[in-house]
């Protein structure tokens, strides 16, 4: 069997982002179906508002309503949308210079094909049904209805009153971020994991220093050379040190309390973390002899979890002197 092992890896979280005063004005405006820009020290109306003026480095103090229509200053076609973009079918991203603004903002434009896009075209925001105070309250921009007549330059930027709006301002947004990866193990890890699939514990010895590593590292951490010599180890060893995990946390896969211990297999020079069961937590000791308890064979795959846990063998503990160098 060749090639490295792969497994999917999903990294996801719904990030909660607090906004601070300037972005809060912008997002609160979106919730109210308005688009708010900030006036910079040089007089330009910047949309979306910058948190700090480019020249003075201070937060802007004057906010101005712009849009909801504007002109496309440039665009590109997304022929193969990626997950979570504003549209699932092909669409355009565009920089849209909203009426009353001096700088364009990025958003999506929904049209059927690239030929429907051109720089200078008029577009207007299409809002979602229930805006929450988020850039996605604008579902996308769409071409302005030809029937509506908008005189170019006829919109006057309305200066907003300095008092905050009556309803509670939007102070935060939630942004789900989900990334999918194909995670590949190194060739050494793959051999180790395939060995586990057969119920074997395959360690690797560095050809230079002769230390035995299990699980293997990408290279001998001391010599920086591949640890190519393979040796099989028994599934018995000792606990060098351990802790008792009492704390639940997001993403945890084993229910606390449990003993998380460094297990030094007989013949290995490094220990690895695993689970100790079959003893009360307060009976686990440094130096305790343990053996692997494997899951049923039919459940085995390429994972260290084929070993469900380690349990005490009842043999006498290893003398502290014999393993203290492994702490």
């Amino acid at each position, binding site marked *: 069997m060749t090639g490295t092992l792969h497994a999917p890896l999903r*990294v996801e979280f719904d990030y909660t982002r607090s906004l601070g005063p300037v972005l809060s004005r912008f997002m609160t405006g979106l919730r109210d179906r308005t688009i708010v820009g900030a006036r910079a020290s040089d007089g330009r109306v910047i949309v979306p508002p910058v948190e700090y003026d480019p020249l003075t480095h201070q937060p802007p103090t004057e906010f101005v309503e712009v849009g909801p229509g504007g002109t496309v200053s440039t665009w590109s076609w997304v022929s193969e949308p990626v997950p979570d973009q504003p549209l699932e079918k092909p669409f355009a991203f565009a920089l849209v210079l909203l009426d009353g603004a001096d700088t364009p903002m990025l*958003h999506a434009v929904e049209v059927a094909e690239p030929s429907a896009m051109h720089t200078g075209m008029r577009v207007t925001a299409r809002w979602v049904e229930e805006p929450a105070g988020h850039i996605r309250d604008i579902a996308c921009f769409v071409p302005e209805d030809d029937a509506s007549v908008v005189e170019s330059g006829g919109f006057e930027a309305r200066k907003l009153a300095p008092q905050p709006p009556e309803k509670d301002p939007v102070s935060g947004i939630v942004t789900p971020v989900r990334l999918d990866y194909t995670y*590949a193990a*190194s060739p050494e890890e793959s051999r180790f994991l395939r060995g586990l699939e057969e119920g074997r514990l395959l360690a690797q010895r560095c050809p230079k220093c002769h230390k035995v590593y299990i699980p293997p*590292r990408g290279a001998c951490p001391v010599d920086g*050379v591949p640890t190519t010599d393979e040796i099989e180890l028994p599934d018995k060893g000792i606990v060098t040190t351990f802790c008792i995990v009492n704390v639940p946390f997001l993403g945890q896969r084993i229910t606390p309390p449990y003993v998380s211990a460094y297990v030094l297999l007989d013949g290995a020079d490094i220990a690895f973390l695993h689970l100790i069961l079959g003893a009360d937590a307060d009976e686990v000791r440094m130096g305790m002899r343990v053996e692997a308890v494997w899951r049923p064979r039919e459940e085995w795959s390429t994972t260290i979890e084929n070993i469900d846990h380690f349990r005490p063998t009842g043999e006498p503990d290893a003398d502290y002197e014999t393993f203290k160098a492994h702490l």
Partner: protein
Amino acid sequence: MRDVAVVGFAQRQMREMEGSPTCVELLVPIFAELFESTGWTKSDVDFWCSGSSDYLAGRSFSFVSAVDAIGALPPVVESHVEMDAAWAMYEAWVKISMGEADTALVYGFGKSSAGQLRRTLALQLDPYVLGPLWPDTVSIAALQARLGLEQGQWDEKEMASVVARSRASGADNPYAVVAGETSVDELLAEQMYADPLRKHDCAPVSDGAAAVVLAAEDRATETVARPAWITGIEHRADGQSLGLRDLTRSPSTAGAAAALGGSGGVNGVDTAELYAPFSHQELILRRELGLSDSVSVNPSGGVLCGNPMFAAGLVRVGEAANRVMAGTSDRALAHATSGPALQQNLLCLLEGRS
């Protein structure tokens, strides 16, 4: 400040790397190759510095496993930037210039194929007003391309010429992932991918790693016959805000080039390795740098032939340095970029001495 030179370079590039995203499997042979070419052992390296990204790997602290490739016992002096390794090289150059190290080994790596690169890079954007739209990196570059096309600053033939020339040069580069003879007409006949960009206008998604060895003064001349002396190195950043920048320009590149002026600037370079992940961006860079037509641009083929993220900037340095060390270039420029639409840029001048 002391003189610092590049005295070694090694790389590996492939479409898809078979192995872990920490790239230890690539780094070990790369380091071995460098020790072979320099005659050094790991104890000759005073400072190790790397560039990589957790988000490329999908795993926090992904650079930590790469440290295994060093063999860091006894302990070493080591640092890391979450940026292209060209900036790690900058950190190493600073350390050597001030005398805190005589030598450094700088490395970068990236396994873009593990994820969906153009989507992942959307996370580089402002997390409030841009990120939640997931603007992929190709779309952003395409916006920039259209601005220049419609303003008459470049045309699609020029863009295709960049691609054709790059791919032809790449044919001589054993590390190129995409290469070969093609014509402007053939390229323009291809359909649009991210209008106005065609697929070939975009750097391929590929994997790889690279490393460069730096040495000071006498150490450099003891190691190779013709070190590539770093006679200038500067970097600058622009703001990210897409509405506030003129996307058809690269002020940070111009700023870095002006700062190099003290060392003669980019005048007189015969070779330039530019990190332009999109064909039109080479045109922007050339203009900001004021490169004349006599300059050999991207003789390696550049990143249009292979774009190992977080190593590609260092590869530009290595490719330029190789030519200086070989004597085919007397004065070369290497450029690296980071962020959307050429937001941040680094320039490095490399020279040979007779």
